[in-house]
């Protein structure tokens, strides 16, 4: 399949020419394939946010190129602006970007900047609100009157309403309680299955990523350490823990059980999966008895 985003030899340094100069990305090359759901994982400071801000042209590379559908996004102003609209980026704590009088107006901010016709804007706002589960009565409220979780969903809708080809979420579950986290993850997953667009989800929780993503990019100190299917990457426990990432606890429990001689598969990443595997195992055992 064709790569929708292709990054070639990307290097980025913050504060070039000052004493606090630091290399945030170090010769990164990767291809993002159309329709994939990719998890981007890495330690705090490994360069995840810096990388995703390159993909929609917010940051200009120190060295290297970013291609969107084969075109260099920094070749001219028009290409950069196109990248802004085709690659949607939802920042960490996106609720701090809300500013309009009503939620509906705020969600419409992106589409309006795209200079879409008014009826198209309205229909996109309605659709985006549906994807994030905001009800009609929310839409005419001030965004500052919403609850924390609702604010975050409104902000996410603001990016979804632009209907980008690639949608990037930078730690969308940061600072939420487990229930809020589940809600956000499942709405992102639903959005991806319904629209079929490419999604990149940045997180430092391996469990969150295992729950929704098909492929994983592991970053470490500004480099891409691993890139592959969830199963392949997660199987390399030693390498992951060497860079300070721990596979989910359930996965560990199951690999220990396997060492004890029980027949379990390796790809148990969430508590739910673990529960299913265990209950199946118990059922089988009862039948055998």
């Amino acid at each position, binding site marked *: 399949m064709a790569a929708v985003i292709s990054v070639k030899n990307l290097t980025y340094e913050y504060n070039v020419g000052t004493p606090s100069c630091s290399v945030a990305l170090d010769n990164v090359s990767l291809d993002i394939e159309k329709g994939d759901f990719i998890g981007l994982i890495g330690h705090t400071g490994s360069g995840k946010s810096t990388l995703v801000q390159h993909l929609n042209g917010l940051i200009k590379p120190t060295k290297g190129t970013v291609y969107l559908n084969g075109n260099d996004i920094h070749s001219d102003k028009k290409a950069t602006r196109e990248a802004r*609209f085709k690659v949607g980026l*939802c920042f960490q704590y996106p609720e701090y970007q809300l500013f309009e009088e009503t939620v509906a107006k705020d969600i419409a901010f992106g589409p309006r*900047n795209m200079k879409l016709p008014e009826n198209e804007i309205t229909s996109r706002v309605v659709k985006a609100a549906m994807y994030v589960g905001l009800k009609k009565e929310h839409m005419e409220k001030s965004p*500052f009157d919403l609850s924390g979780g609702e604010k975050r969903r409104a902000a996410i809708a603001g990016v979804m309403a632009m209907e980008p080809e690639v949608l990037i979420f930078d730690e969308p579950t940061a600072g939420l309680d487990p229930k809020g986290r589940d809600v956000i993850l499942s709405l992102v997953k639903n959005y991806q299955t319904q629209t079929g667009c490419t999604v990149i989800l940045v997180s430092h929780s391996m469990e969150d990523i295992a729950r929704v993503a098909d492929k994983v990019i592991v970053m470490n100190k500004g480099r891409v350490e691993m890139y592959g299917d969830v199963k392949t990457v997660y199987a390399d426990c030693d390498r992951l823990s060497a860079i300070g990432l721990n596979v989910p606890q359930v996965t560990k429990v199951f690999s220990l059980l396997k060492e004890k001689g029980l027949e379990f598969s390796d790809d148990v990443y969430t508590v739910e999966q673990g529960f299913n595997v265990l209950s199946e195992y118990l059922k089988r055992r009862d039948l055998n008895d």
Partner: protein
Amino acid sequence: MIKDITIGQYFLGNSFLHRMDARMKIILTFALIIAIFVCKSIPSLLLMVAITVFLVAVSSVPFKMVLKSIKPIAIIVVFTGILNLFYVTGGKTLFEWSFIHITTKGIFTAVFMAVRIICLVVISSLLTYTTTPTMLTDAIERLLSPLKVFKIPVHTLAMMMTLALRFIPTLIEEIDRISNAQKARGADLDSGGLIEKVKALIPIIVPLFVSSIRRAYELADAMDCRCYVGGDGRTRMKQMKLKGSDFVSLLVTAVLIAGLILLNHYFTKVI
């Protein structure tokens, strides 16, 4: 653009300027700034420039940063220079055309004002470059503490200043973050006329205010939780003590300023 702001920036170092007592540094800075405007003869101005260059040299602040502090006032320097050049009359007239008179005094005034402004900015930025903001406000609080007699809340004012300085980098970071988030939603901050540009700031300013107010409340709560009640009965972890070298600096500065006044007195004043 916004990262060019150098006010309140501190440069780690161990020069004698860094080690000088902050109170003494403030007083001497003020003394020098007043001295700048005493200079009316060429030798006295040269001595002032020499003092400024010496201070920059011993401060261990990168020369690039000193230039950066002058950059924002370059326009003011040029503007006042041109005004002085054209409008100050006196001395020999060199050129005359309708309302424009270029005179020797005009030229001298233009040059003197430019040099004075640059010296002023360099010396006062050296103060902030070599003193941490906390030291600075601490020193200001102590220098102003006699005003407590007149019921002026010196401690509160100093605390407000500390907090304001503390939050400058935070605000800059916040502006960066919010404007990036809005740009990701297609906000166009650079093109369009003046009115469009001002309108384009709304999506940045509103979230900035909201988060600043939230931050202020959080900070107030955090201070309450740590039993902050203002200046009464508050002791200090860091005591300030004048050292021998501080008095030497005072003496040297006094001698230099006396020298300036003498140079001014015995040579012709050109402005």
